[in-house]
């Protein structure tokens, strides 16, 4: 039997979805365990009992990594969703509500893109008094720009189509048209954009926490684990950074695969492949 590309794509989609869901649920389960310290087993290199080794406080790095990844994924979903909704509202408003609104939205997009993400995250995190809340607000407010730009372009194109113009001549209001005729066109774009936001959200959450602005040092978060590992690298404790970072990379990669697969499956142009 020959496997066509569509089946292969569905296979990848399922594989990454199963992995991500497993890690997320598993990590929720291990929240308490990730904090257990046991000084009789500190600084152990990876072995059969402790797959990823243990750190200077005798915490099992495998448990900590899974718990941290789970936290990252949940945070990523929350912030990506909030960011996408923000992008949707601004993108559509910019394109529908006339010229002044449009130039305001494009100005806002350029403004946010003009400050490097990490720097803006530092600023917003500072404004929110650092901590969990700062990370959520920061990532939400920095990641909407590219999706908003995409949706705006799409709406501008739709506005020139005949059925929208007819609807407008028939006396429908601008917002009414947007809600009734445009939203259903934009939904596929919106969802793929949303999924493609996940990897960025997760990466930036880990980065800002790594720098010390995000989640508190007690939390089992990826950024915390990696910034702690940095202090022990020079003394040869390579496993503290290699395994957690590697697993983080795999997670982000699988989110990319997930997004690409959904994108391919939703695109009618590739249905025959």
């Amino acid at each position, binding site marked *: 039997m020959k496997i066509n590309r569509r089946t292969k794509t569905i296979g990848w989609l399922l594989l990454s979805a199963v992995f991500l869901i497993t890690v997320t649920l598993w990590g929720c389960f291990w929240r308490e365990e990730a904090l257990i310290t046991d000084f009789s087993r500190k600084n152990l290199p990876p072995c059969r009992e402790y797959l990823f080794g243990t750190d200077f406080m005798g915490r099992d790095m495998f448990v900590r990594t899974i718990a941290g990844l789970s936290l990252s994924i949940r945070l990523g979903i929350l912030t990506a969703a909030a960011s996408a909704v923000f992008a949707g509202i601004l993108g559509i408003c910019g394109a529908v509500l006339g010229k002044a609104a449009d130039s305001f939205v494009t100005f806002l997009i350029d*403004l946010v893109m003009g*400050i490097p993400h990490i720097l803006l995250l530092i600023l917003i995190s*500072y*404004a929110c008094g650092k901590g969990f809340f700062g990370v959520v607000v920061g990532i939400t407010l920095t990641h909407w720009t590219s999706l908003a730009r995409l949706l705006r372009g799409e709406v501008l194109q739709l506005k020139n189509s005949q059925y929208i113009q007819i609807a407008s001549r028939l006396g429908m209001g601008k917002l009414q048209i947007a809600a009734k005729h445009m939203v259903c066109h934009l939904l596929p774009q919106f969802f793929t954009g949303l999924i493609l936001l996940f990897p960025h959200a997760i990466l930036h959450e880990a980065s800002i926490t790594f720098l010390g*602005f995000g989640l508190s040092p007690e939390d089992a978060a990826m950024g915390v684990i*990696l910034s702690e590992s940095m202090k022990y690298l020079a003394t040869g404790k390579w496993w503290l*950074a290699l395994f957690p970072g590697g697993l983080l990379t795999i997670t982000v990669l699988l989110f990319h695969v997930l997004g690409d697969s959904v994108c391919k499956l939703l695109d009618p142009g590739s249905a025959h492949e």
Partner: protein
Amino acid sequence: MKEKQIQKFLMGILRVALLIFGVSAAAFFLLAISPIDPLQSNVGQGALGAMSQEQVEKLKAYWGADTPMIQRFFTWAWDFVRGDMGVSLLYRRKVSEILWEKAAGSLGMMALAWLLSGGMGFFLGSLAGAKQGKWQDRLITGYSLLMASTPAFFLALLLLMVFSVWLKILPVGFSVPVGVEASQVSFADRAVHAILPAAALSLTGISNIALHTREKMIEVMESDYVLFARARGEDTRRIIRRHCLRNIALPAMTLQFASVSEIFGGSVLVEQVFSYPGLGQAAVNAGLGSDVPLLLGITVVTAVLVFGGNALANLLYGMIDPRIKRGDGI
């Protein structure tokens, strides 16, 4: 015709000025609404508690903590425009001085990474696009996807582990050797210290540029004029040189200038790993240490660099593209 171009140019400048004003205002108000008490974080909890109420009031008045936000912003902005960026609370020196010093430390490293990632990204992207579906393409897209998923700081950690801790051939951190007088530091020393940070930055930076260039290349390879060139009997090498590279040069240039912001963002993380004393590390220290003037200064200077880069790209676009030069518009 000429008049129109000048008008467009002026509008562009006005827009950039407005954007820079917007960035400074946004940054200023973000820092001003912070619940972090500037008095407490700069004087220290203990010292503040030991001071009398009068002293605290005096200090507050000295720093202008009670004047309204808008007034404070315009005072700051006016001073900034005249070149007075304020005094850093962390270093107790002028912000402009610190910015110069830090920029001199890391701009070279960033420029190296910027050129490397742009050049390599362009080369790999066009190679992958020209060989779409072949093993070269799969290798390059695979690499790009992997790098796009790797946090820059993790890659930096890996490089540090392999080259500094394990193989011991490159320094662990800092931009100059430890324990050597500043006047004794040679250019070679600086270069050796810049290798790993620049490598970490460019290895991750390549992926974005390569993927976009690849897409453009594929678009061009499927165009009618390439088909026609093939029909005339030109071989692939010649088609790529004469038709493809010229057409993807312009979008590649836009990408290259747009990546200024990414390189800077990455450098914040990478400098933290290598303890490299540059602008990025200064930004992190300023944020963690509540050094508002320094953080503001860094934000505005970066924004100027980013917008300046974009504006330069637009200008070059007009000079290089014969269609725009003739004024046809696209």
